[in-house]
């Protein structure tokens, strides 16, 4: 910037036409409008004085003009400095798509000289690929899209650099308007997001690795249990049940890892369990609803226990028995709530069990604690009816 300020105004006086600004020189008023005194005065000295004064005035005017130009020139230099300092590549195209300007970072990032493409069709000179490996079409580039009328366009591409290496780049495009708000071109910023993408990839690998290790840990636990119980007096079905419970928990864990541990769709939780444990024998319906990971695990385990219990002792132990599983979103005492109901029909006469086993622990205390909800178990003649009401908290 100091360079720009030190430029001498005289430099511009010499060749004002080299500047792109409006014509710097106003037409001199001297020949067209002779001053009224000229006819009256016969004294040439006076006339000379007057001319001298006029020249001084013009010089002053020129100096002022030059000053203004210098300011504009300075601004331009400042702007150029900004563009060159910005840590992103910048390309500018005119309304026809012709690339007219690019900062040095474009060449640094892309490792080839800027292609001053003549129009959008010529953008094929730039080689970039989508995440799926397909080549980016000329019309897909943000520059082309903004020129075609969009007000903002963004695209992540894998760019093939001049030295045949590739890197991930984000392209962001915006239109350029003139003073009258006409679109006169477009500008794009090119951002190197290679590091970010690689970190994302690494994260994915780590998540998969963690998932793998957790699954392994579950397998090891299962083996320990099996080996410990093999030669003991514990009945085989107890062993099997333990095995299945650990499986159900491990499976629910696995799914949550796939969804990055945040949340899952309620229906997915339902189908994963009932279609697996009792395929085709449970009819389920309800609106889309996202539940958090802890709740998803709790419901997975509860459905597993309800389903296996129904198969062993309840409605699903006889051919004509069936189960309906419904969920709905309703206000209970003015609190938005998720209401889940498992009802068994056409089953054998229900025997109310007072025994508090692991199953009832999961379908009752555990789920109530996890969800902050309430559980009601109704032992009807035709089958068990289990209702869980969970208040939906706004995080």
């Amino acid at each position, binding site marked *: 910037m100091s360079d720009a300020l030190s430029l001498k105004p005289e430099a511009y006086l010499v060749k004002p036409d080299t500047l792109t600004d409006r014509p710097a020189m106003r037409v001199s008023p001297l020949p067209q409008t002779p001053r009224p005194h000229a006819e009256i005065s016969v004294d040439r000295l006076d006339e000379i004085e007057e001319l001298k004064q006029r020249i001084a005035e013009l010089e002053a005017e020129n100096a002022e003009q030059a000053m203004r130009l210098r300011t504009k020139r300075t601004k331009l230099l400042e702007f150029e400095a900004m563009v060159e300092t910005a840590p992103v590549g910048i390309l500018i195209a005119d309304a026809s798509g012709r690339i007219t300007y690019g900062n040095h970072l474009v060449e640094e990032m892309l490792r080839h000289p800027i292609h001053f493409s003549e129009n959008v069709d010529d953008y094929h000179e730039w080689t970039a690929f989508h995440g799926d490996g397909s080549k980016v079409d000329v019309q897909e580039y943000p520059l082309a899209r903004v020129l075609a009328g969009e007000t903002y366009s963004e695209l992540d591409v894998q760019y093939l650099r001049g030295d045949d290496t590739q890197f991930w780049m984000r392209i962001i495009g915006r239109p350029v308007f003139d003073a009258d708000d006409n679109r006169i071109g477009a500008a794009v910023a090119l951002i190197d997001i290679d590091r970010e993408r690689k970190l994302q990839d690494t994260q994915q690998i780590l998540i998969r690795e963690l998932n793998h290790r957790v699954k392994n840990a579950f397998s090891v636990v299962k083996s320990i249990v099996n080996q410990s119980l093999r030669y003991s007096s514990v009945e085989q079905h107890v062993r099997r049940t333990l095995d299945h419970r650990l499986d159900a928990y491990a499976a629910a864990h696995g799914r949550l890892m796939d969804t990055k541990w945040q949340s899952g769709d309620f229906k997915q939780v339902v189908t994963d369990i009932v279609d697996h444990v009792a395929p085709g024998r449970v009819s389920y319906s309800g609106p889309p609803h996202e539940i958090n990971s*802890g709740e998803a695990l*709790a419901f997975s385990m509860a459905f597993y226990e309800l389903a296996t219990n129904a198969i062993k002792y309840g409605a699903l132990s006889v051919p004509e028995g069936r189960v309906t599983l419904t969920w709905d979103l309703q206000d209970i005492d003015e609190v938005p709530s998720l209401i889940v109901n498992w009802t068994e029909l056409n089953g054998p006469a229900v025997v109310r069990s007072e025994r508090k086993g692991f199953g009832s622990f999961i379908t009752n205390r*555990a789920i109530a*604690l*996890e969800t*902050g909800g309430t559980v009601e178990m109704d032992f009807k003649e035709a089958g068990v009816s289990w209702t869980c009401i969970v208040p939906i908290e706004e995080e």
Partner: protein
Amino acid sequence: MSDESRRVLVVEDEVILALDLTEIIEDHGYAVVGPCSRLKHAERAAREDKIDAALLDVNLGHGKTTEGIAKILRERNIPIAFITAEAPSSVAFRKSEEPLIRKPSSTTALMNCIERLVA
């Protein structure tokens, strides 16, 4: 047990673990406050309930910790033990005199710790 049972607050977000811990502690003659699997409930209990000692899981998931709970309990001079699956050094807010139990823990280690807390 009788009314004189010592009361232990249990904060643990893994529900099955929470209920398992509760049963173990109750089997040893203590009363359990909670168990609380959520921060909000745990905070209320820590502030209002009659508590003789507290067993706090460190990490409650989604970036939440029991740091705030510990602060409330310290102000009430209630002894605390932490329980975590992570390395002891990762619990930045633990005071050196507060014991730390590693998960998974044995019943003996757990009960020894609680007995020392309420002694």
